[in-house]
């Protein structure tokens, strides 16, 4: 037998070589480093198995939730409750919130769960550590709302609102405001239902005054509930909207305007396009002067240049007397069409075609060139390719015509899109196309006649 020990694989007899290769190896690695780092994080002690298994349990729950395996998630949850008794006080205090989040998620989807189970769970969790009482109450109410149980939700919110325990902290204050605001929102809902009833009733109806009285009462309560919240910086769209609606209904225009102006312009609030939209719509309803409307939309233009209100903005600018507004009007149109979602917007193209022509006729070639400069690299393939010409024509000839006109003006008569549309023989549009051809010849920015 040839001895296996004699022909031991190379490095065995050559210890030195191996050692040096390890030392000089470029791919240095420190297998001990990771474990070292881990032990440093927990103060040099080995992690207890309790901590290990509960964190494994947590990841099993998360995995099950991700895969929508509610049954398994509930099984692991059964074990995860013991973190409430964790001897690590930091983890023990964090546990209720984690358990609430996971547990409510499971109960929301689990086939065997129902409103009753959810209620029991929420009530239990509220009373484990007072830190989460308000948050859980609010989410509990939202759950009930989701299940259409308005009255129960309202009751939960009232309970939470009157709950007092220990000292008031600032974070708690916000939560209470939020709870009150939600209550207000629910009241708004009933109010708006009553209002609809009222609008159906005849003024001479004997029930009219009773309902009207009811409507009035509600409005008063709601305004108290909501107004506190919307003074705090944040995004409160539904609250603001309903609040303003009620203020307007009762003729408090100044109050409504103040709320909206504050919501849109207060710098402490996060940037929120809806705030400007609400303000604009309000001002439009109030028939505010054009300059005011323009100034509101100017801000919206900066935040969302592709918003559908931008076409209205353009119209406003076009009608304005100031020249700078005319220039901005062009910018706005170009800006809208930069967005893929707006490429088939025929109004935008119509406006652009008309307006570019008008601008060129008004001897503002520079403005057009300025806008075109940054777009000439990508607009041709983005809007005016041969492919688009074909498909646009097939889908919407009117759109194709408008686009062709713009293409002709910007790229000259040699442009493929323009040429393709020109070649199409269309009886009704024939005249229009001819007119277009003439205009292009005359005004196109390519080879401008000086």
């Amino acid at each position, binding site marked *: 037998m040839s001895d296996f020990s004699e022909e031991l694989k190379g490095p065995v007899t050559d210890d030195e070589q191996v050692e040096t290769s390890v030392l000089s190896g470029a791919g240095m690695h420190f297998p001990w480093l990771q474990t070292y780092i881990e032990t440093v994080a927990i103060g040099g002690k080995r992690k*207890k198995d309790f901590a290990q298994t509960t964190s494994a349990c947590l990841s099993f729950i998360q995995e099950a939730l991700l895969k929508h395996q509610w049954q398994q998630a509930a*099984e692991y949850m059964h074990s995860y409750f013991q973190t409430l008794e964790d001897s690590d006080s930091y983890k023990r205090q964090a546990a209720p919130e984690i358990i609430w989040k996971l547990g409510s998620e499971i109960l929301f989807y689990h086939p065997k769960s129902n409103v009753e189970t959810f209620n029991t769970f929420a009530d239990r969790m509220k009373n484990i550590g007072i830190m989460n009482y308000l948050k859980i109450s609010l989410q509990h109410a939202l759950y009930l709302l989701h299940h259409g149980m308005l009255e129960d939700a309202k009751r939960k919110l009232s309970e939470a609102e009157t709950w007092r325990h220990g*000292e008031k902290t600032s974070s708690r204050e916000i939560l209470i405001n939020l709870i009150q605001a939600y209550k207000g929102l629910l009241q708004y809902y009933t109010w708006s239902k009553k209002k609809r009833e009222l609008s159906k009733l005849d003024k001479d109806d004997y029930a009219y005054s009773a309902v009207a009285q009811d409507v009035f009462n509600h409005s008063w309560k709601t305004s108290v509930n909501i107004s506190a919240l919307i003074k705090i910086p944040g995004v409160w769209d539904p609250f603001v909207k309903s609040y303003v609606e009620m203020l307007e209904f009762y003729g408090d225009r100044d109050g409504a305007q103040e709320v909206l102006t504050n919501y849109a312009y207060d710098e402490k609030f996060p940037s929120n396009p809806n705030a400007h939209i609400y303000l604009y719509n309000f001002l439009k309803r109030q028939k505010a002067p054009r300059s005011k409307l323009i100034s509101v939309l100017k801000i919206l233009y900066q935040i969302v240049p592709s918003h559908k209100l931008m076409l209205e903005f353009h119209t406003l600018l076009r009608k304005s007397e100031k020249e700078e507004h005319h220039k901005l009007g062009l910018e706005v149109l170009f800006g809208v069409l930069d967005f893929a979602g707006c490429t088939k917007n025929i109004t935008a193209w119509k406006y652009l075609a008309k307006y570019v022509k008008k601008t060129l006729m008004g001897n503002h070639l520079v403005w057009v060139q300025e806008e075109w400069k940054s777009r000439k690299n990508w607009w041709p393939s983005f809007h005016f390719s041969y492919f688009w010409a074909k498909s646009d024509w097939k889908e919407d000839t009117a759109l194709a015509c408008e686009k062709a006109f713009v293409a002709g003006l910007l790229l000259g008569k040699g442009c493929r899109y323009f040429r393709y549309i020109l070649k199409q023989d269309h009886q009704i549009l024939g005249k229009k196309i001819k007119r277009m051809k003439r205009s292009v010849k005359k005004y196109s920015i390519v080879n401008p006649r000086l």
Partner: protein
Amino acid sequence: MDLEEAEEFKERCTQCEAVSWGLTDEGKYYCTSCHNVTERSKEVINSDIIPNAQIKALNRGLKRKNNSEKGWDWYVCEGFQHILYQQAEALKNLGVGPELKNDVLHNFWKRYLQKSKQAYCKNPVYTTGRKPTVLEDNLSHSDWASEPELPSDVNSPFLESGMESQSDVHTRKSLRISKALQSETSVCSGSLDGVEYSQRKEKGLVKMTVPQTLAFCYLSLLWQREAITLSDLLRFVEEDHIPYINAFQHFPEQMKLYGRDRGIFGTESWPNYDDIYKKTIEVATFLDLPRFPDITEDCYLHPNILCMKYLMEVNLPDEMHSLTCHVVKMTGMGEADFLTFDPIAKVAKTVKYDVQAVAVIVVVLKLLFLLDDNLEWSLSNLAEKHNEKNKKDKPWFNFRKWYQIMKKAFDEKKQNWEEARAKYLWKSEKPLYYSYVDKPVAYKKREMVVNLQKQFSTLVDSTPTAGKKSPSSFQFNWTEEDTERTCFHGHSLQGVLKEKGQSLLTKNSLYWLSTQKFCRCYCTHVTTYEESNYSLSYQFILNLFSFLLRIKASLLHEEVSLVEKELFKKKYSVTKKKSKSKKRRR
């Protein structure tokens, strides 16, 4: 609770940051908003305003002594004794002979109490002049045969009070007073000496801990040469067949635990192989035990028998057993002197029987298949071809097929194991709390958890996953009948061996060592195991076996290196010199 009195305490609550304090009737502050109880007590802060607070508290404490709230007076060592008693009972139920409990473990424990000066000696250690629980004469009038069962030691101070002399009653009385004093001040424990015990530090003293109880169990098993290895023992602990985690919850109702006892008896980890192994040696040396009974070839712990067991467990051919026996013989690992534990020898060390047996199997697998991610597969191809041609013969062992089956079985097992661990419930029905005022909070929390668990268990499928597994030394089960999972026990090694004259040689003539160089310094580590440096099949085999033993793969790798060191002694000592060819006989 009087709120006005608590007004001068202005600190923020650590739990909820509120400043709203009330006083408990033990004079401690608690937060009215979250019921968190502080360690601060009224008297300490404001002693000048209520000068007799301390006295009042004392009176109250003494009064309370009379009702059963506070429970019995008991010592920490009695707690451990109770745990050992439960463990011994559990071992008996597992089929271990009754002598283990009545003679061996009992004996070891008494020896421990004596060596640690807690009982059975002239001057017990209790500093405050207390008498130890087990009285001297208790020992003198008892011999091994007539010795009552273990728990009588626990109960004697409580139930057999008739045995106590008048003076003992006196000392106990004074004890009670001191205890009452103690529990009213900030440090406290349910046991009498919990505080002292956790502060006790003496050179050379081995203090009892919960893991230590397993060291005692293992020592007695070893003494009796029972068929339970250390890894089996620890696995039974993990599977809850042997009381360990929360063993205190089975203490008699009147033995109350809190405060310092929490640190002494509470466990939040499963025992670790290496740790218990070290503790075993430590305890044996401390007890000054004589040489253990010899481990001979007919003992379960002998490598030849253990190898057979593990070969069956991992579904390897029986024919490999002769090879493992050969390796055991060549390395001298089968000799009684090598195997027997002798705590009073110069260097007390015992063999990790289970790890070693498994390491021998790994070495044999390396001899046969090299495990370089190459040869084992080409040998498998040969075996596959042969088996296809000769369907009627005894099939050749096919490593690839074995790997595929084992991999699947192992992955399933491991997944189940991980899931079961994640679902493990650690907390006892009897919550441990820091002090008496904490008690209602702890119980309330416990109740809360139980309620939540009850609620969620209704959401779980009504068929509960098969309850507690019955204890078994085998984790895998391979039978000829099961067609899904081929049993390889009867397969032959012909494909990897070749005849030469009268002896059989391995076809594979190569070998690689797990470790090239042993550390020459005095540190105990042999080598580090970095997975990625080794072949995938070697990694798989190490992972498989280390999972079976619930140890780290690196520990097994270390043991493999040690076996190789014995087997290839010459290679390590004389590197260049050609070693004699070894012949394998079958």
